[in-house]
């Protein structure tokens, strides 16, 4: 046997070596050394045969069956349902955020202004600014998510109805603030 084909066989019993063998990554020189080693090492010969058998065994597995003909339709319908549900959720979440933000603004206004009339006055004067912000937000959302246009328009309209000074939420906020004032005054 040529001298250079003799090498410590421990190297060839490592996982790294075996991975290179199985991936056909050995250089011609290493191939020669490996061949020589196989002639001498029974356990490596057995292991190589066993690993080769695994490849053959797995290749015998049958081809997976075809999907049913209506699978695409069912899946697309499910996707549409899920998307509708998501839009509804985002619509509800958006409305909740708007409502929470409005209550927060009302509370801050209540603590910031010394008189109730002054607070309400400031809220009224912010009407135009709020309207512009909503229109701009709506336009931005419209450009970004064209596909959920009706929901965005709906959210904006509901938010407008809730937050504007003559809207439901604002009416509620004003009534709530005035009742708090009254209670504080009585105390």
């Amino acid at each position: 046997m040529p001298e250079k084909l003799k090498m410590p066989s421990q190297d060839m019993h490592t996982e790294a070596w075996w991975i290179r063998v199985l991936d056909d990554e050995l250089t011609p020189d290493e191939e020669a050394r490996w061949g020589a080693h196989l002639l001498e090492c029974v356990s490596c010969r057995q292991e190589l045969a066993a690993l080769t058998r695994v490849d053959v065994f797995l290749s015998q597995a049958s081809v997976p069956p075809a999907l049913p003909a209506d699978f695409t339709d069912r899946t697309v319908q499910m996707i549409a349902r899920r998307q509708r549900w998501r839009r509804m959720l985002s619509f509800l979440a958006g409305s909740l955020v708007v409502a929470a933000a409005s209550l927060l603004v009302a509370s801050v206004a209540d603590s910031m202004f010394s008189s109730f009339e002054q607070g309400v006055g400031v809220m009224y004067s912010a009407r135009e600014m709020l309207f512009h912000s909503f229109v701009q937000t709506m336009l931005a959302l419209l450009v970004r998510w064209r596909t959920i246009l009706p929901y965005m328009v709906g959210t904006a309209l509901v938010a407008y109805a809730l937050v504007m000074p003559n809207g439901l939420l604002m009416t509620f906020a004003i009534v709530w603030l005035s009742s708090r004032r009254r209670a504080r005054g009585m105390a």
Partner: protein
Amino acid sequence: MKGLSVRMSVSQDGQEAMEADFLRLAQKGDAASITKLVETYQQRVFNVCYRMLGEATEAEDATQEALVKAVTNLHSYDIERPFKPWIMRIASNGCIDRIRRRKDALSLDGMGEDGAWEWQAGNSPSPEREYLRNERQAAVRAVLDDLSPADRMVVTLFYWEGMPYTEIEEVTGLTVSAIKSRLFRARRTMAELLVQEETYA
């Protein structure tokens, strides 16, 4: 040969560009593109799920779940990256979860009760051959069942999907060296199981 490879590369590029186009449209919610996306990937995703779960009915559910999840989360998909590893990752993770969930309940005795391994549309030449095929599938399934879900995924993607290590890396999130190591250990485990089975037989 060179001409052929150039043609193939041009055609592949064209296909990728076309795919990117309908993915972009699907991201915007275009119904026709979503349908095309589902049609393009459903069988490939099903093949992986079937190999991992070994049951046609459950694999079908897992495939549907993966496709729905992928389409409803398309906004988070980077259009510059290949789509196949992305959807395969969703599908594989779903299958791993299912395997973990059923691990305790699953037993080899129940295998094939719903016709999972037996069901092969229009492909049953004779009862003897059918029996032998089922036996072989049961043996493959038994060997795969002994692997961890992650190892099973690596074996599935490598052997049956023919994915290169780099693509498996994208699907699994493991490094190439970790994939090689897992694959080798899985091969060793399977080799030992085959030897045991032969001895037992």
